[in-house]
């Protein structure tokens, strides 16, 4: 898959309360949740972003609460993928399980700034910063996880392999 968009870059330890505050968790409707994406770290995120845009975090992106509403909101908002130096483990699992593309690359994060245009090619395993011309490699998923992807996601895999 190829994702192309403008970058919104944030600091270390962006937590899931900042991505989608608990005051909006009285629903699990993706459209309602998406309206408040990143609200407590970047109030105007939804006004500024365009579908396809990319969120970049430093280390430990998505820490805190296990709410899957966080990757659901980001995906429904139209963000094409999230790149960070590292992800908090529950956010990582949730994104993988529900199909929000997330990429761990310290080098890419160092070489990307807010406002840059970035293209991610998951087939080629490459992140290209179109603004600076720099290219970064993406590591492949372990075989175990690729099997889950091949099956069409965790739920489909489990339903078949009870």
């Amino acid at each position, binding site marked *: 898959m190829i994702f192309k968009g403008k970058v919104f870059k944030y600091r270390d330890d962006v937590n899931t309360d900042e991505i989608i505050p608990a005051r909006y968790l009285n*629903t699990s409707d993706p459209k309602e949740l998406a309206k408040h994406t990143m609200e407590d770290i970047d109030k105007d995120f939804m006004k500024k972003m365009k579908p396809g845009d990319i969120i970049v975090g430093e280390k430990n992106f998505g820490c805190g609460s296990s709410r899957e509403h966080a990757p659901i909101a980001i995906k429904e908002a139209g963000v094409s993928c999230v790149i960070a130096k590292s992800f908090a483990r529950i956010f990582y699992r949730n994104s993988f399980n529900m199909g929000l593309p997330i990429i761990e690359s310290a080098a890419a994060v160092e070489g990307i700034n807010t406002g840059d245009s970035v293209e991610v090619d998951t087939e080629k395993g490459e992140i290209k910063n179109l603004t600076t011309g720099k290219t970064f490699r993406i590591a492949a998923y372990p075989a175990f996880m690729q099997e889950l992807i091949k099956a069409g996601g965790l739920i489909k895999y489990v339903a078949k392999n009870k």
Partner: protein
Amino acid sequence: MGMTITEKILAAHAGKKEVRPGDLIWAKLDIALGNDITAPIAISEFRGSGAKKVWDKDKVVLVPDHFTPNKDIMSAEQSKILRDFAKEQKLKFYFEVGEVGVEHALLPEKGIVTSGDAIIGADSHTCTYGALGAFSTGVGSTDLAAAMIGGKVWLKVPEAMKFVFNGKLPKWVSGKDLILKIIGDIGVDGALYRSMEFTGDAIRSLSMESRLSMCNMAIEAGGKNGIIEPDAITKEYLKGRSLRKPVFYSSDKDAKYVSVKEYDASKLEPMVAFPHLPSNTKPISKVGNVKIDQVVIGSCTNGRIEDMRIAAKLMKGKKVAPYLRTLIIPATQAIFKQMIKEGLMEIFINAGAAVSTPTCGPCLGGHMGILAAGERALATTNRNFVGRMGSPKAEVYLSNPAVAAASAILGRIAGPEEL
């Protein structure tokens, strides 16, 4: 080479003789938990998969504790999804308002989780049950849905970090302070993807309440699980309580750890986490003059009977500071009843505190004690992120119940010795 307690539990649940850090495994589960925020999504995915029946009606546990008693119409709809599903699936463990408590206080109290278990919960603080010597970790709604269908979870076996506390704990220092100390030292991602094992004679002398508080906050260092080897205190706690036969595991002497950190427990002080990260800690002696508008004593971290006794002891015969709201939230109905029996309710009410029915409520900025812009709260809860207890312009500080109670009386963050 030996294995850690976490590796042994995971190997047993994966049907393997041994596992090593980095192995990707499918683990069979003893319990899978969801609440009124996370379970509705899991239930919707369960139905979407075409599944008709949960894998085991005695092992899927639903606890509507976050926005209950229902704070608004939308929350009521979320709770109803849990109730209808529990009825339809004839779940053994669904707790209606009136018997519900904060999930991570309720499950150990009722003996639903026990030593040697492998547990997942769609709530990040599911790591609490490591205090019983179980492997227990937080996941999201899709993982919960997969567990409801097939009874298993995919996991990467974590590397382990050992934290050793030796020496006698000073007065007013509890499990909460030990874990805040660790988080302050290693940071909110200091144990990312890793297992945190707590040991040493100071840990072995900790009450079960204090152990539960400590393991509860392993996630605040990014940990996959927090765990304490079962001992005489664990066995005493489980006696007449555990609904299934516990299995006691311990770490081998030659088990491998990526790091070992040692602490002299006798030199520790109560700790306070400043906004806006649990790692932003200071010992109470270095806090300075921080005025507060609200105190919250409760939550899955510190809403247990020992916490209530400590707070009541300090508040007895005193009044909370003018213009300060003090909210006391026992984590379960059994704790609530015990508070009445021991006269703690009277102490709190006479002091001018509000006492509430069990709920997660203000901890996550849900309801029952939301902060206005510019306000400051001291809470015995587990997170102090931006906007966590209400306005993104409010501030949350974290402490143990003794500091919270003393601060409620003095109107500023203060240690119990200052009373």
